[in-house]
């Protein structure tokens, strides 16, 4: 593989897929956007599948996603490679139990009905939990739902357990405390894999020297911007959650706190982690064939990531 070009020619353009405007706000609020020598525009999406379609149609160069879409793209035969990763000190999701139900340990998931969202990060999260508890899909009842319906399903007691993100998780516990809402204790939650999200780029963009260089530069600035959001939490909360997303500051703080601290590991170090993710999904029968995690990364970016880590 040729080395990653570093020179960004004038007029290079990138289109990056965003979710809930988080990426573009992060880049702009942190000032990282101004440091880019390419012109990066953002296309806002809701959910991974639509992003994959846009990649397929050649409408995107780059996207910020969770840990599952790259597997999905891989399985679908679409060449989209991971160019950067962000690991947080916390999990993405938290197990909320329906009102009246108590969960003491992960092992208590046995026999419960659990929300399940194929193609989203909630899928490996649940599968990992089962694996850690020594359970299989057969020991529980997985209820496929659209991600957006998870909170309603658990609030109404339609499922026993739901993997919720913030602000839904805290709000559920607060709002339904009177009806006995509870969650898997946090020390149990710490047994689960931490949040992992990716930047990934289309093979076509990576093959284009100008775009590849622009993506390299973008990765570097993206890491800076993420660091900025941790060290300037108030500014981040205000510019993104309050101003752009119309959230109440208290809710926003919950979300930011739930994300914990970020680190940006080398891609090569993530291959085993990604492989185990693939394996757990495959073993659950949700992948048509066993995939090789190495095919999902463009390791040339370890160079720029490495330069930022220290």
């Amino acid at each position, binding site marked *: 593989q040729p080395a990653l070009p570093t020179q960004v020619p004038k007029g290079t353009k990138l289109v990056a897929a965003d979710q809930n405007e988080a990426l573009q706000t992060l880049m702009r609020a942190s000032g990282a956007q101004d440091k880019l020598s390419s012109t990066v525009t953002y*296309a806002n999406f809701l959910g991974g599948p639509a992003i994959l379609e846009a990649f397929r149609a050649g409408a995107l160069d780059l996207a910020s996603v969770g840990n599952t879409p790259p597997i999905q793209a891989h399985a679908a035969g679409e060449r989209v490679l991971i160019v950067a990763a962000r690991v947080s000190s916390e999990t993405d999701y938290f197990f909320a139990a329906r009102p009246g139900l108590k969960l003491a340990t992960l092992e208590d998931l046995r026999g419960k009905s659990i929300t399940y969202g194929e193609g989203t990060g909630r899928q490996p999260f649940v599968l990992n939990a089962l694996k850690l508890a020594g359970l299989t899909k057969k020991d529980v009842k997985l209820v496929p739902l659209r991600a957006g319906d998870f909170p309603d399903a658990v609030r109404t007691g339609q499922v026993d357990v739901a993997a919720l993100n913030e602000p839904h998780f805290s709000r559920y516990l607060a709002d339904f405390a009177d009806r006995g809402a509870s969650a898997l204790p946090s020390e149990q939650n710490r047994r689960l894999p931490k949040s992992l999200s990716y930047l990934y780029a289309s093979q076509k963009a990576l093959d284009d020297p100008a775009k590849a260089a622009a993506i390299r530069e973008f990765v570097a600035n993206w890491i800076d911007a993420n660091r900025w959001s941790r060290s300037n939490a108030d500014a981040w909360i205000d510019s993104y959650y309050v101003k752009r997303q119309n959230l109440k500051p208290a809710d926003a703080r919950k979300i930011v706190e739930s994300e914990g601290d970020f680190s940006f590991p080398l891609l090569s170090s993530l291959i085993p982690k990604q492989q185990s993710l693939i394996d757990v999904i495959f073993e659950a029968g949700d992948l048509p064939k066993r995939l090789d995690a190495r095919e999902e990364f463009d390791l040339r970016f370890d160079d720029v990531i490495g330069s930022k880590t220290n």
Partner: protein
Amino acid sequence: MTDTAGSNVYSPYLPQRGHESEPRPGAPAGALARKPSRLAFGRLPRGGILFGPVLLILVWEFASAIGWLSPKFLAAPSTALVTGYDLLVSGTLAEHFLASAKRAYLGLGIGVAIGLALALAAGLSRIGEASIDGLVQIKRAVPTLALIPLAILWLGIGEVMKIALIASSVMVPIYINTHAALRGIDLRHVELARSVGITRSEFLREVASPGALPGFFTGLRLAVTTCWTALVVLEQINTSEGIGYLMNRARDYGQTDIIVVGLAIYAALGLGSDLAVRFWERRALGYRKALNS
């Protein structure tokens, strides 16, 4: 109409009583007795259509107030009013609304034009029917969600794709209703047209179109809301503005008050555009009212 045992006193403006003739002994009273009933379709007084919606809001507010409907699931109308007002004052709402309205009405305009053109082509020629009708049936049977990948492929992820998909949804009720009306057109009028020897385009303009107009209007009533509802899905793709986007995001963050504001906007749009179409319809079909002989 005031009905009395054997006699019917009728006076449009003077509610004064006429004479009553005694029931005639020989008349088969039972067999032919006239049950008083109003079979005509009275027009509702202005604003009467709001009766149901207002009732709904009152019940909902009441249910919220006494705690039957927890705001955790659905905000009360009054809460939503406050949120809506805030959004309005801040200008956010207008921004989102305009973004959606542009898409919806562009799509509506294009879809109506296409639907009409296809309906006329299919309704008035065999070759048109053969090539168009089957495809439209297929198009409408295929869910928009399944078309999105293709649309993205051919039209990209920009506005063009969204407007095209809205137009393609809007096209369906326009086509079906106009086409059905064309096929149900009074054969007497077709015969008359043939007998006076008009051209095809005159026939289209002066017989087919007015004859199919009632059907077109029904299609339009369906279309004016279709163009908005289609946005909820489409505004998940490459947008950060629009009512659909607002709703989707509110759902993500569990903001029930904003969801209710969105619902209220949809409701207002639904009622408003339906009333507008019906007003237009009433004017265009005014000739139907008169009735003699």
